[in-house]
C-alpha cells in the first residue's frame, strides 16, 4: 500500500487534533494553525485525487489493521478525494473572506474557540466523506452538529442564540431519526460496515424477507439527513441560522455542512442500500416531490424577504431542492447533476455570502434593501462579485449555475414520468431566482443611493477582494470547463458501486 493511502486518515486526524491545540495557543498562532491545517488537508486531498486518477481504483484503509467485519474502515475514491479537496478550498476561502468581520462580530476571548470549532467541523466533514462505517458516520454527524451550533452561537446576539437552539433541536431530531434507522438496519443485517450491509441487504431483497423494516430503516435515515440538510419542509431553522451568524459561518454552513450530509446520503444510497434497490422504493418519489416544492417555496420566501442575508439563506432552500430533485429522478444522470450542483452551489453560495457582507459594510451595517441602494458603487469588488454570483444562480451560460441546470434538464428528459414536472418547476424556479437576485443587483447599482456612506477601494479590502476574485474564477471554471469535472463525478460514482 502506497504512503498516499494514509492521507485520508492523516487529514481527519490532524484537523481533529489541531482543534485541541488551538485552544492553548495565542490567537494569532491559532489562526495560523487553522489556515495551515485547512491548506494542508487541501493539498493532501489534491495529491490523493491525482493518485486515484492514476490508479483508477478506490481503496479501503483498515484502521488499526483490523480486518472487516470487526475493524473500522476508511474508503477513498475519486469522488471522496475530490469532494474533500473542494470542501477545503471553499472553507479556506470562506475563512479568509470573513476574517476581517470576525473581529467585529465575535468577542476577543472567543476567537480561539472559533478556530477550534472550524477545525472540528473540518474533521467531521472529512470523516463523513471518507468513512466506510455507518456508526462512525453517526458519531461524526453529531460532532458536526455540535460544532455547527457553536459556529452559529459564537456571535452572541439574541437572534443567534434563538437560531442556534432551533438548529440544535431540528438537527438532533435529524440525527435521532438517523440513529433509529441505523439501529433497525443493524438489527436486520448485523453489520455496521457499509460494504457488509450492502451484501446483506441484497440477500434480504432477494429472499423477500423483512421488506417493511428495511424500507422504514432507509426512510428514517433519509428523513434524518433531509432535516439536517434543510430540505423543504424541514427548512425552518435555516434562515436565522444562516442569516445572523458571522459571515464565515454562514458561508461554511450553507456550502459545506449541509453538503456533508447530502454526501453521506449519496454514500448510503450507493454503498449501503444499493442504487438499484433504492430507486425501486417509493422514497425517491417523495424526495422528488419535496425537492420540487423546495425549489418553488424557497424562492417564494426569498422574494418576500427584505434582508439580503436571509434572502440568500432562503435561496439555499431552493438550491437544496434542486439537489434532491436530482436524487428523485432515480437515474445516474440525475445523480451526476446533483453532485455537480453540490459543487456549483457551494461555490456560488459562499461567494454570495462573502460578497453580501462587503455590501452591507458600506451601508452602515444594515442589511435592508433600502439601505443597500447604490452599494455596488461604494464597494465595487463586492458589487461585481455579487452580480457574478447572482448570474450563476439565475443560470446564465458561462457560469456554473447554467451547467447544473443543463445537467438537471438532460437528466429529466430521460425520465418519462418526471420529465415535464421537473422541467416546468426548473423553469419556474429559474424565473423566481431571477426575480429576487436581479432585483437585488439592480438595487445595488441604482444611482439614487444614500451618498453619506463611505466608499471602500481595493486598498481597504485586499484579502476580501482577492477571495472574491477566486470565488468568481472558481464559478467560471465550473461553468466553462465542466466536462472534466463531470467525467470525474461519473468515475467517482462508478467506484461507489
Amino acid at each position, binding site marked *: 500500500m502506497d504512503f498516499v493511502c494514509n492521507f485520508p486518515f492523516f487529514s481527519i486526524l490532524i484537523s481533529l487534533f489541531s482543534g485541541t491545540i488551538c485552544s492553548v495557543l495565542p490567537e494569532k498562532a491559532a489562526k495560523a494553525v487553522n489556515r495551515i491545517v485547512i491548506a494542508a488537508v487541501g493539498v493532501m486531498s489534491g495529491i490523493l485525487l491525482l493518485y486515484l486518477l492514476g490508479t483508477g481504483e478506490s481503496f479501503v484503509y483498515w484502521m488499526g489493521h483490523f480486518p472487516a467485519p470487526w475493524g473500522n474502515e476508511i474508503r477513498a475514491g475519486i469522488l471522496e478525494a475530490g469532494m474533500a479537496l473542494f470542501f477545503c478550498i471553499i472553507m479556506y476561502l470562506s475563512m479568509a473572506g470573513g476574517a476581517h468581520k470576525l473581529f467585529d462580530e465575535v468577542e476577543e476571548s472567543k476567537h480561539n474557540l472559533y478556530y477550534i470549532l472550524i477545525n472540528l467541523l473540518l474533521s467531521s466533514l472529512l470523516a463523513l466523506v471518507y468513512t466506510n462505517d455507518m456508526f462512525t458516520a453517526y458519531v461524526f454527524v453529531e460532532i458536526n452538529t455540535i460544532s455547527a451550533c457553536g459556529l452559529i452561537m459564537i456571535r452572541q446576539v439574541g437572534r443567534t442564540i434563538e437560531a442556534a437552539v432551533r438548529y440544535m433541536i431540528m438537527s438532533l431530531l435529524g440525527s435521532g431519526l438517523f440513529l433509529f434507522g441505523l439501529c433497525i438496519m443493524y438489527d436486520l443485517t448485523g453489520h455496521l460496515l457499509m460494504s457488509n450491509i450492502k451484501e446483506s441487504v441484497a440477500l434480504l431483497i432477494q429472499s423477500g424477507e423483512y421488506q417493511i423494516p428495511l424500507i422504514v430503516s432507509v426512510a428514517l435515515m433519509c428523513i434524518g439527513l433531509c432535516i439536517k440538510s434543510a430540505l423543504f419542509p424541514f427548512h425552518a431553522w435555516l434562515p436565522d441560522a444562516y442569516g445572523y451568524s458571522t459571515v464565515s459561518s454562514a458561508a461554511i454552513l450553507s456550502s459545506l455542512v449541509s453538503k456533508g450530509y447530502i454526501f453521506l446520503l449519496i454514500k448510503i444510497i450507493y454503498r449501503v442500500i444499493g442504487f438499484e434497490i433504492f430507486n425501486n422504493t417509493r422514497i425517491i418519489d417523495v424526495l422528488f416531490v419535496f425537492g420540487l416544492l423546495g425549489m418553488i417555496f424557497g424562492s417564494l420566501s426569498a422574494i418576500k424577504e427584505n434582508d439580503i442575508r436571509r434572502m440568500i439563506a432562503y435561496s439555499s432552500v431552493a438550491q437544496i431542492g434542486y439537489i434532491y430533485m436530482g436524487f428523485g429522478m432515480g437515474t445516474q444522470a440525475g445523480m451526476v447533476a446533483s453532485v455537480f450542483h453540490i459543487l456549483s452551489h457551494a461555490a456560488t453560495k459562499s461567494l454570495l455570502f462573502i460578497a453580501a457582507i462587503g455590501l452591507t459594510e458600506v451601508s452602515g451595517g444594515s442589511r435592508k434593501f433600502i439601505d443597500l441602494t447604490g452599494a455596488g458603487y461604494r464597494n465595487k469588488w463586492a458589487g461585481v462579485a455579487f452580480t457574478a454570483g447572482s*448570474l450563476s444562480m*439565475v443560470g*446564465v*451560460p*458561462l457560469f456554473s449555475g447554467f*451547467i447544473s441546470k*443543463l445537467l438537471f*434538464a*438532460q437528466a*429529466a*428528459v*430521460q425520465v418519462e414520468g418526471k420529465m415535464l414536472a421537473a*422541467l416546468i418547476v426548473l*423553469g419556474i424556479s*429559474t*424565473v423566481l431566482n*431571477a*426575480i429576487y437576485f*436581479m*432585483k437585488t443587483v*439592480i438595487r445595488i*447599482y*441604482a*444611482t*439614487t443611493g444614500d451618498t453619506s456612506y463611505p466608499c471602500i477601494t481595493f486598498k481597504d479590502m485586499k484579502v476580501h477582494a482577492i477571495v472574491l476574485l477566486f470565488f468568481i474564477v472558481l464559478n467560471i471554471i465550473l461553468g*466553462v*470547463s*465542466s*466536462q472534466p469535472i*463531470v467525467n470525474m463525478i461519473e468515475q467517482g460514482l462508478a467506484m461507489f458501486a
Partner: protein
Amino acid sequence: MYLILLPILFPILAGLCLLVYRKEPERKLLTAFTGICLVITGALVVSALTLARQSLTLFYLTRTLPICFRIDEISVLFSLLTVIVFICAGLFAFVYMKHEQKEKRYYGFYLMVFGVLNALCFAGNLITFYLFFELLTLSSLPLVLHTGTKEAIMAGLKYLFYSLCGAYASLFGIYFLYHNCDTLTFTAGGVLQVSPASPEGRFLLLIAFVMILGFGVKAGMFPMHAWLPTAHPAAPAPASAALSAVIVKAGVLALIRVIYYIFGADFLRGSWVQTAWLTLALVTVFMGSMLAYREPVLKKRLAYSTVSQLSYILFGLAVMHPDAFTGGLLHVLAHGFIKGSLFLIAGAIIYTTGKTKVHELRGIGKEMPLTMWCYTIVSLGLIGIPPTGGFVSKWYLAIGGLAGDIGIFRYIGPIVLLISALLTAGYLLPLTIQGFFPGADYDYNTLQKREPARLMTIPILFMTILSVIVGLFPNIITDYLTEFVSTLL
C-alpha cells in the same frame, strides 16, 4: 480564423475598460474613445465577413456542446444592419447624452451590446446563440435603466422578466432538441430527422411552438409584447433606436435560426404551429398599429409601431414561402433603418424642445425643417409608399402571403397588412401635417430656428437615405438573398 472573434471581443473589452475605469473622463476624450471603438468594430465586422462559411469551434461547454461561430448570409445581413445602426446611434448619442448623466456607463454598455450582437449574428449553433441571447438581455438592461428614475427601473425589471421568461421557454425547447437531434449546429433546412406525424414529432411540434413564443418575446410578439412599449420610451433616445432597430431583431434572428436552421421549414409547414404562429403574428400587426394610433406620447407611439412592424417580419417567416421570407428579411433592413431614424428624430425633438407628446409639436416642421423632412420620408417608407424601402418589403410580403400554402390566411394576411398600413399612416402622418401646417391660428412670432446639431442630423439623414436606397435598388439585396433562400425552403 480567429479574426471572427475580434468584432465580438474588441467592443466587449473596450466597454469593460470604460466601465472599470475609475474616474469620469473628460467628455471629449470619452466620446472620441467611444467613436473610435465603434468605427474599429465596424471595420472588424466587415473584415470578418470575408470569412463566410468557415466555422470556428472555440471550446466545448460539455462533451457535445461546442461554442462555435460561423458566418452565413443571415449573419451578413444582420451584422451589417447592426454596424450601421450602432455607428449612427452612437454618433447621435455624442450630442444627445450631454443632458444625461453617467455617460461613461452608457457608452460602456453600449459597446458591450454591440459586441454581443455581433456574436449573435455569428453564432454557429443553438447553444452559442442562447448564451449570447442571455448576455444581450443582461447587457442591454442598463441602457433601459440608464436614467435611474423609478419609471425606468420598473421598465427595466419588466424588460428583464419578460426576456428571461422568454429565454427560459426557449431553453426548455433546447433541452428537448438536444435530446432529439444529433447536433444543434445551424444547418440550412434543419437538423431534425423526425417526422411530424410520429408521436415524438407531435411533441416536438409543441416544443417548436413554445420556442416560437419564447423567442417571440424579444421580437415583441403578442401575447408577450408588453415589455416593448414600456422599455423603449424609458431608455435614452439613441438607446431606443438601437433597441428598436437592432436588439429586438435578435428575436427575429432567433426565430429564423430555430425554425429554418434547426427544425426546418418542412417540419412545420401545414402544422397547427404554423397556423398559430400566423394568427399571433397577424394579431400583433393589427393590435400594435391600433395601440400606436391611440398613443399620444411620440416615443411610445413609435414603440407600439415597432411591435406591429416586427410582426410583419414574423408573418413573413411564418408563411414559409420564399417570397415572403425575402420580404421579411428586406423588412428587417427597411424597418431597422426607418425605426432607427424615427427614434433618433424623436430624440432630437426631445433634446431641442423638451416636448414628448405629439399634439404639443405643432409647427415643429417650421422649426426643424431638415429633421421633419427626414421624418416625413421615413414615415412614408414605413407606410409602404414607393419608392421607399417599406414598399418593396411589403410587396414581397404580400406576394408571398398570397402565394403561400396557408389556407385562409392567404387572404387574411395581405388584408391585415393593408389595414395596418393605413393605420400606420394614421399614426405617423399627423405629426408631419401639424408640423408643417400648424394652421391659421398658429403664432408665427414664437417660431425659432432650432435645427439640432450636425452630429445629430447627419446620422438621421444617413439612415433616411439608406432606407430610400433599399427601396430604390432592392435588387442588389434580393439577388443576394434569392439564392440561399432557395436552400432554406
